């Protein structure tokens, strides 16, 4: 094999199909409606996506999935980002399905994965807490053994889609004596269990992040995902994958912002000429395109490595650190070129602005990943 940056024919087909489907189903009025609705997703659209094989795309065929790879998922996530699709796709597939596939027992996989693939159950990951950090020491929610069960208590914050989830992967501390990576366990928790209360937070992206309070929630010991006290490595893997997946969405988001901006610069006339004929606007657009391509190249490199099962902590860190800042530069210029019209809530640009801002800090911001890179450099 030689290096190759092109999509496969199958990936091109997936991309086209996703673009057509989402263009048809998701005009921005619909995005707005969904964002403002209480559940934050359209159940009938969710079902259609499941029927198209999107929800099970990366799950093996034996569990009812499509048997495709993370790189294929990347293609789809880019289109989802471009279309601003609201809903629990990311939570269910990236934060629920993939960790179960990765670390679940055969029984767990057979129980949960087919339901995920068919769109019947919605999953999410309850990881972050009021301290709003992604490191192991930040995990304070406790799970205490009582016979064959564990009792969960504490608060998780910024949990996506918890209000509609059927199950949550809950990251909890099972060994009180430890304060870091040891003693962390991941539980598969029925989201409707007694003692769980959930409040949707109002966020910049209207993306239904929740506060989830666990008040003496009982979880069967059999619902441990992976090993007792050894859950952190899977959490890390999940965060890494989620960061890469978030990058894919943002590539779609900033590409669309660039495309819209170029179209606008060609159409909008001032001083009797298209503003895109002014060099300052041309250079802004050139800067945006360069940032988009850097984001695209580094994101797909990371996605390809995950797909190939290669260790890629550094590549993911490069991609997420880059895109977290590049996306902000891109959106700032997109607004500057759009002028006042882009400032209106009725203009499409604001959907991308809000999503890019939320994504900047989700699963690690630029500072977080610069530290990862610094460690990789031996600093």
């Amino acid at each position, binding site marked *: *094999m*030689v*290096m*190759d*940056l*092109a*999509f*496969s024919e199958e*990936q091109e087909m997936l991309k086209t199909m996703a673009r057509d489907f989402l263009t048809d189903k998701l005009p921005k009025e619909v995005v707005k409606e969904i964002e403002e609705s209480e559940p934050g997703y359209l159940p009938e659209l969710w079902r259609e996506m499941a029927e198209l094989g999107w929800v099970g795309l990366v799950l093996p065929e034996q569990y009812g999935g499509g048997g495709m790879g993370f*790189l294929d998922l990347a293609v789809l996530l880019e289109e989802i980002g471009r279309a601003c699709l609201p809903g629990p796709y990311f939570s269910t597939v990236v934060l629920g399905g993939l960790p179960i596939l990765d670390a679940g027992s055969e029984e767990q996989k057979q129980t949960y994965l087919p339901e995920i693939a068919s769109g019947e159950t919605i999953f999410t990951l309850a990881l972050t807490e009021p301290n709003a950090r992604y490191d192991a020491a930040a995990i304070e929610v406790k799970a205490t053994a009582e016979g064959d069960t564990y009792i969960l208590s504490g608060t998780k914050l910024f949990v996506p889609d918890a209000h509609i989830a059927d199950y949550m992967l809950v990251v909890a501390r099972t060994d009180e004596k430890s304060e870091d990576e040891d003693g962390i366990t991941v539980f598969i928790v029925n989201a409707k269990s007694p003692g769980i209360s959930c409040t949707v937070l109002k966020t910049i992206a209207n993306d239904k992040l929740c506060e989830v309070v666990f008040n003496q929630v009982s979880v069967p010991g059999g619902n441990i995902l992976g090993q007792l006290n050894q859950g952190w490595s899977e959490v890390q893997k999940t965060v890494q994958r989620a960061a890469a997946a978030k990058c894919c969405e943002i590539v779609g988001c900033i590409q669309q912002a660039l495309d819209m901006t*170029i179209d606008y*610069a*060609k159409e909008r006339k001032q001083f009797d*000429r*298209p503003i*895109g*004929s002014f*060099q300052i*606007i*041309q*250079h802004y*657009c*050139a*800067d945006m*395109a*360069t940032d988009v*391509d*850097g984001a695209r*190249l*580094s994101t*797909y*490199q990371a996605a*390809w*490595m995950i797909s*190939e099962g290669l260790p890629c902590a550094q*590549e993911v*860190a*490069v991609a997420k*650190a*880059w895109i977290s800042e590049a996306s902000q530069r891109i959106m700032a210029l997109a607004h500057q070129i759009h002028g006042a019209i882009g400032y209106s809530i009725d203009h499409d640009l604001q959907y991308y602005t809000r999503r890019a801002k939320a994504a900047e800090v989700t699963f690690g911001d630029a*500072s977080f*990943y*610069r*530290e990862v*890179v*610094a460690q*990789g*450099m*031996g*600093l």
Partner: protein
Amino acid sequence: MDFKFSEEQQKFRQEVRDFLEEELKQGLWQPSCDAWIMGFDPKFTKRVAQKGWIGLTWPKEHGGQGRSYVDRLILTEEMLRYGAPAGCHWFADRQVGGAILLYGTDEQKEELLPMILRGEARVGLGMSEPEAGSDLASLKTRAVEDGDYYIIDGQKVWTSGADHMNWIYLVARTDPDAPKHRGISEFLFEAGLPGVTVNPIVDITGRIHFNEIFLDGVRVPKKCLIGEKNRGFYQILHQLDYERSGMERLMGNYPLFEALIQYAKETKRDGKPLSEDPLVRSKLAQLKIELEVGRLHMYRIALVMDEGRAPNWESAMAKVYGTDFEQRLANTAMEIAGLYGQLSPESRWAPMLGMARESYLSSKGYSLQAGTSEILKNILALRKLGLPTQ
């Protein structure tokens, strides 16, 4: 999609590294910034030529190795990583040979290519003139036909190659009546012809790489015309795509990056290594991130060339990105070194072999050479993004 180097390519990279390590071990040269353009070492070039590493991508029937542009990028990346003195062959290898392969006559290929392959053609590029920088097509140097010769009169500036230059690749006006883009031709001739005066330019770093050249009735044999008469401007545009395309636009001062990391690890402030200072850590990591993104830009260009396309907007984009990075690297090194950054290499107090100061100064030229960043952004905006000119 595949981001992996083949086994052969990994072996090749190792072979290049082993060669350069061995050279270093023998103390044949010191790594330095800008060595691809400032490092003149005819013996090193000869050894590189003997390895078959000049003309790597050229077809075998012309003495090349018929290898891919990705392979060549691996080679140049390693040369830059080690700061190897490749100035004697870089230009001929990068673009002059390619232009001859593309536009040259059979006779020119037979005569000139072997000389380049042997590392004996140290070519200076005679494009800019005092009144023709970014607006290259307004150049005034004239070439007038006279029997079997062209008589060339005019002046060039920022011609590369210092006093090592023995051939000049020159663009001159051959039809003063045609629209300015359509009356320009390319020539390749020996720098020692009567009427050629070469004056070195001492640059802002105090070093000499560039020259100004006066051409006073220089009689250039007609066989020195490269390609089609009056089509030279279009040929040059193509050649510039290649000139801008390489890793030297990202890693030209790479030795400074390694030195800076080392410096941050070894230098203590308040009893702690600088590398533990959160600000320093963050700056160095950011440079590394930018370097890695830049590498991907560069490999994309090589893949475009391997597809048989000239890398037009891709190399414009990558060169702006890469030279911005090189400038940030130099600026960051100066910031981190503080008062020490200003010291020149001769000072016993100079950290990082004085590379921070040198690179800071020379980096002012990075975003000007081979197309200013502004011209390159125009190219990107018009040719890739399709923005209107009026």
